[in-house]
């Protein structure tokens, strides 16, 4: 079996494995280890957190009927769910594609096996074969054990879509995983991490629960830092009515490292471009965990705040900061959820990614760059899963891969890609996406990061890569936590706009008066 396995993984990996025995193989396939992750059960949400999202607080007495009815409803409302449950032929092409399987060896973390946890129940209640020949087609009754198993393993999926790329029928486990979480929520079994955070957004506008005063104070500190660093008065405006651009960025950009350095980068780019821009305290969050729990209604409610903020502030453009799943929701869903955006300037993409904006500034020559400022770093780039496989940038197919690389190459002298089977559409999830970035899943997060970390190790050995840049708040937090477990310092993960910030040459402008905050006291 071993030689078959070796050739199994896509294309070029076989020769590469032979080329350098010392280098860890990021695509190395483990032997099956049944039940390896069966006991890792993410914390469940408290009743008040479920209720705030419109779900029952606790497990309903008639949960079984409700769950089956919900499953039927999803099959009516979502073509992907219905078709994906019908069309899998169990070919096995996806079995070695999930980073959580590669990291844990638990067969239920193989995408097809993860889907089958739900498909087996769907078959039992909704298909002819499953109703009359359950044993033959692997159909099973919905029991409490099955429900628990769903909770366990659908919270070991980061919805990264790497398996969907490999599937001959385009079956996307992320869709099944979102549906499973939606069913679990509908019977009163929510996940603490996701549901608590969505509740915070509904109350305060961001995942952290930062109120406008605290947010302004944080931004004031950052403005001071910028002034100290550069000698230039670079502003980070909040709730400034009439600004041209509304920046929607993950709230982690306000407090976490290396996220903050990215935020400083956006501020410098906007300053240098001479455009007026603002953050919103009402929509102070790009993240939208409604997607992770598969709740259209919650996702729409969170996304809608961006529309409200844009209208209220009277902006003409919306730009998103560095955040992976947020960009998927923004690029692919925002128009549907909160559109039409006929009140914005139609000459710009709605919404636009900060990297699209920055690349325009660089290519037009308006942004002055000193690449040598980043000479201490030998960079590589981690494609974030939701950007790579769930969204795009620019006008060309695959722009989501080229735009960040063009920006990185424009601001750094030393850049190398990682193993081609681990980047672009084949990129590995960081291990913390899809609502799994919580300490109670740390074991999974560390193991799930293994393929990416091995690819990075290989790039370090082959090209001397020292740092990795990312454009996702979750990736950045996850890597700063798990990189030390793989022998890298936590500062080895950087924001792309952190590198932009390092390299950009700011010019003092005389007319800073126009940018004086005017609407700050509106709260």
């Amino acid at each position, binding site marked *: 079996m071993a030689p078959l396995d070796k050739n199994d993984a896509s294309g070029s990996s076989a020769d590469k494995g032979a080329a350098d025995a010392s280098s860890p193989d990021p695509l190395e396939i483990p032997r099956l280890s049944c039940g390896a992750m069966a006991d890792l059960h993410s914390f469940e949400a408290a009743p008040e957190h479920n209720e705030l999202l419109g779900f029952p607080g606790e497990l309903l007495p008639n949960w079984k009927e409700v769950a089956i009815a919900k499953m039927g409803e999803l099959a009516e409302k979502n073509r992907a769910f219905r078709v994906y449950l019908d069309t899998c032929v169990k070919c096995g092409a996806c079995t070695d594609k999930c980073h959580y399987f590669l990291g844990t060896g638990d067969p239920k973390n193989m995408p097809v096996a993860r889907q089958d946890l739900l498909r087996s129940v769907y078959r039992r209640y909704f298909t002819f074969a499953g109703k009359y020949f359950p044993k033959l087609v692997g159909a099973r009754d919905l029991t409490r054990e099955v429900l628990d198993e769903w909770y366990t393993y659908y919270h070991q999926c980061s919805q990264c879509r790497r398996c969907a790329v490999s599937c001959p029928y*385009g*079956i996307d486990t992320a869709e099944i995983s979102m549906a499973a979480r939606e069913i679990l929520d509908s019977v009163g079994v929510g996940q603490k991490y996701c549901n608590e955070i969505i509740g915070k957004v509904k109350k305060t506008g961001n995942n952290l629960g930062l109120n406008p005063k605290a947010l302004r104070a944080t931004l004031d500190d950052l403005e001071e830092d910028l002034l100290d660093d550069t000698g230039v008065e670079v502003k980070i405006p909040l709730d400034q009515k009439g600004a041209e651009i509304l920046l929607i960025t993950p709230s982690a950009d306000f407090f976490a490292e290396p996220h903050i350095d990215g935020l400083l980068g956006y501020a410098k780019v906007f300053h240098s471009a001479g455009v007026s821009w603002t953050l919103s305290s009402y929509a102070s969050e790009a993240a939208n965990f409604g997607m992770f729990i598969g709740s259209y209604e919650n996702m729409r409610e969170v996304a809608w705040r961006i529309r409200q903020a844009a209208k209220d502030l009277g902006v003409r453009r919306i730009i998103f900061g560095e955040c992976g799943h947020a960009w998927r929701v923004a690029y692919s869903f925002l*128009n*549907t959820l909160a559109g039409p955006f006929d009140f914005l300037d139609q000459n710009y993409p709605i919404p636009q990614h900060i990297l699209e904006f920055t690349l325009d500034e660089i290519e037009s020559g308006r942004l002055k760059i000193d690449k040598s400022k980043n000479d201490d770093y030998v960079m590589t780039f981690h494609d974030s899963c939701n950007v790579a496989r769930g969204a795009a940038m620019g006008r060309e197919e695959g722009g989501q891969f080229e735009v960040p690389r063009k920006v990185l190459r424009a601001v750094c002298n030393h850049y190398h890609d990682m193993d081609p089977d681990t980047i672009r559409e084949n990129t590995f999830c960081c291990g913390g996406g899809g609502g799994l970035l919580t300490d109670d899943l740390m074991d999974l997060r560390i193991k799930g990061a293994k393929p990416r970390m091995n690819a990075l190790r290989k790039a370090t050995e082959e090209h001397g890569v020292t740092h990795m840049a990312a454009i996702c708040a979750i990736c950045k937090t996850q890597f700063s936590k798990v990189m030390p477990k793989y022998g890298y310092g936590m500062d080895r993960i950087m924001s792309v706009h952190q590198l932009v910030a390092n390299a950009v040459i700011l010019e003092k402008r005389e007319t800073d008066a126009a940018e004086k905050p005017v609407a700050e006291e509106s709260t």
Partner: protein
Amino acid sequence: MLSTLYAVLFYVATILLVVGVTRKVIIYARTPAPLKIPVSPAPRTRAGVVMRMLREVLLFQSLFRSNKWIWAFGFLFHWSMLLVLLRHLRYFTEPVWWWVSLIQPFGIYAGFTMLAGLLGLLARRIVQERIRYISGPSDYLMLALLILIVLSGLAMRFVAPTDIVAVKAYMLGLLRFRILELPAAAPLLVHLASVAVLMIVFPISKLMHAPGLFFAPSRTQVDNAREFRHKTAWADQLPPLPDDIPARGES
């Protein structure tokens, strides 16, 4: 008696296949896709999506990229089966279309390559630990059924030659709702019965992957969410949310 039995079997199987698949396809087509979920990088135009689907359907592009072994066996099996199926048109047409005659010799040998593909897929299912784990009885049975069809078909030609002229007359009769004499040869009866079973289970089994492929939003959607607002009837019915900000900044 046997002739009538098989005639009924084929009429029933045909009806179940056509009605069953049509029904499923209509359900697929009517079920809305509420969000834009193409797996990117995805084409930005409808024409691009057509090209993407052609590459998937004709070349199995994604499978090629993800697993060379499964691709090789699957590709061999499916393309051989297509040749074999087309070759079989000669039993339902009189006179035989010129291009069916043209592929006749290739169609014969495609039976062997089809078998090779099926055996390869079966071997992987048994030998490869991960695929063995996800395989259920129906997965093995489906392969067994297909192998039975191929073996009985090959036997009719290479082991115990069947009176193919009589078979053709019988088939042409069925098309005109006339039941003629069906030769009572074992390989033929096994062949026809197993084909009928395949037709019957098609709409209620994973064989629906064939039409289902064309309804996977991850592959069939155009990547143009920013340019065109994607809408769904049920989502439009959701209660409207306020356009202005209610009580600002309260927490």
